[in-house]
């Protein structure tokens, strides 16, 4: 948990009208913005590569930079972003997809700044999600994209169609991998599947749990070469995150790393990644023809 003195200046810098207390206790919906948010999907082929860790910490970093951020935990049924944020939401994705609550009602303001749509724990598996559920999610994302600057989708690992639909709805797919062969192969499999789709997001790569500086770049170079040669897909390097025992040994209830240890090497690496993310988002913003996150997701649902 971060004390208020740490966060208050940042919040004031964003908008004096939006105070932490208001967000926490009134649960007011974010104000609408002009244009659509940047939608980033954190994805991986293999599980356990650090998608949720990266998504939550990136959200905190972007919030600290003055952006309105929401994390949508799309890891249906096996969600844990709310644990990393240290919140216990009353409504989750389960309620949202069932139509019991609106996206505004399911939105939770975390104590660290970003908003969160928590993943449901009542959905047994992705196989139980049908097109109707995905359409509800598409509408919810459209609303969220209309009142935030960044929408970060914490996607499930693997290549299930529901997972792919979520990734393909984003403008940027941040593929998180580790410098070991199993994660690398699965990351390439994901990239190849994305590249085979008629319309796919920009693919960015983050190499997590790097034991030696520079190994992340070497990993990226290899993967980028294979992707270009075989999948004919260009990928972009966002950066590497070092292996850090402070991350692996964190306890439940502890604040996310970027909020609690902003000066540690891992936090610095995430800040560096965030700068690259912002550069990519600014320089590669899609044209209006993209139709927005809802249109992109509905297009994929039609292809399901």
């Amino acid at each position, binding site marked *: 948990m971060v004390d208020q003195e740490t966060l208050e200046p940042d919040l004031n810098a964003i908008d004096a009208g939006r105070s932490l207390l208001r967000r926490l206790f009134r649960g007011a919906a974010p104000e609408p913005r002009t244009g659509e948010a940047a939608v980033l999907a954190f994805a991986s082929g293999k599980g356990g590569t650090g998608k949720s860790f990266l998504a939550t910490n990136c959200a905190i970093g972007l919030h600290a930079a003055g952006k309105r951020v929401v994390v949508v935990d799309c890891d249906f049924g096996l969600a844990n972003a709310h644990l990393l944020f240290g919140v216990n939401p009353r409504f989750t994705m389960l309620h949202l997809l069932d139509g019991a609550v609106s996206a505004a009602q399911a939105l939770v303001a975390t104590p660290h700044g970003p908003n969160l749509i928590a993943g449901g724990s009542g959905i047994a598996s992705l196989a139980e999600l049908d097109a109707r559920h995905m359409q509800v999610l598409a509408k919810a994302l459209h609303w969220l994209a209309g009142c935030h600057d960044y929408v970060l989708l914490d996607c499930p*690992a693997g*290549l299930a169609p529901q997972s792919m639909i979520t990734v393909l709805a984003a403008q940027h797919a941040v593929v998180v991998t580790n410098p070991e062969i199993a994660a690398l192969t699965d990351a390439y499999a994901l990239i*190849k599947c994305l590249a085979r789709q*008629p319309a796919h997001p920009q693919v960015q790569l983050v190499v997590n749990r790097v034991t030696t500086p520079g190994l992340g770049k070497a990993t990226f170079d290899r993967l980028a070469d294979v992707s270009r040669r075989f999948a*004919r*897909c*260009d990928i972009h390097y966002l950066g590497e995150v070092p292996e850090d025992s402070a991350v692996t040994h964190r306890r439940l209830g502890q604040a996310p790393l970027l909020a609690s240890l902003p000066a540690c090497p891992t936090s610095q690496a995430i800040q560096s990644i965030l700068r690259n993310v912002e550069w990519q988002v600014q320089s590669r913003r899609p044209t209006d023809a993209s139709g927005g996150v809802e249109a992109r997701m509905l297009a994929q649902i039609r292809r399901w």
Partner: protein
Amino acid sequence: MIRGPVLPQLRASVWARLAPQLDALEHGLCLVLEGVDCSAGQFGLVEGLARDAMGAPVLVLVAVDGDGLLTARVHAACEFLARVGGALAAAVPEAELIAGAAGRVLVVGTDSGAAALELLCRLPLPGLEVCRVETFRVAGSERSVVRWLVERGAAVSTGRADRTPSFEVPVRCRADWDELQQQCSRIDPDVRWDGDRFSQRLTWNGRLLGRIETNRAQLWGHDAAGFSLPLASDLDRRRFVDRMLRRFAHLVGIADGAAGAIGNDMDVDAVGGGATSAAAADETLRTTLSTTRLSAEEYSALGGPTAVGSAEEGGSVADDVARIVTADQPVQGSLSRTGSSPPRVGNGTHRTD
């Protein structure tokens, strides 16, 4: 179209060839039970009870020459349907028939039953339909066409193979069907409809654009890539016509690859959205996922178990990792997996993070 030989032999052998392919006679015709006794054992068994695409019962008989009881069996079948056809839905629940749907008697013959079929064509029996399966060989393989001789109890005048029963549309879908035909006719003057009672193909100069099928009193649209959707609303119909139009544009060459892709409405990566994506233009998401495989060359390039590159050329990432890890600590877990079998891509597995 029935592929494979339909041999002019006895009833049993002809039926054995036909039974698994009833759908080729008429779209949606599905065999439910074999051996129906309609005459209290007097004239033998009717070959099978089938269900058509509208959920109506169809008694299927095979005609072969020299079968002296065929006419009597057909009579008995027609009478049986007239007497108890309306109650079959309740009496044979496993057939999943729609209660009240009018039944038919379908007699199928081959070259071996020409005389018998000719005789049946003269019978004024309501609900009787007669068709003849004619086989021929093309490039060494046997093909067949279906000629309808009697349709709805009345003999078809020409008896030509291109004379097929008119498309049957559920009553509540007729307006949608008319509208759909009009919209598709505006795609191009050379667009044609053809098919059987419960299935219609939409083609342009012989090339398939899509299909419309009746299934359980509902119209379904299928595009050339296999994508299906029920045509239950104006929106569904427009969506289907849009797919037909895109397919047409793709065939004509107006739209190439990704530009003609269905739902392709966002920027694609400069390289990644190019030729690779074009291959997926007509594919569904599931298709692209299930057909994506990693080749041995890709594994090799990634540094997998089939790696063939030399260490002097820089080796693979796995080699880099191995060098670094072994320098720091004993090799563990992840690297030992390089010997495992390659993971299958697109199997829809869900792993946790």
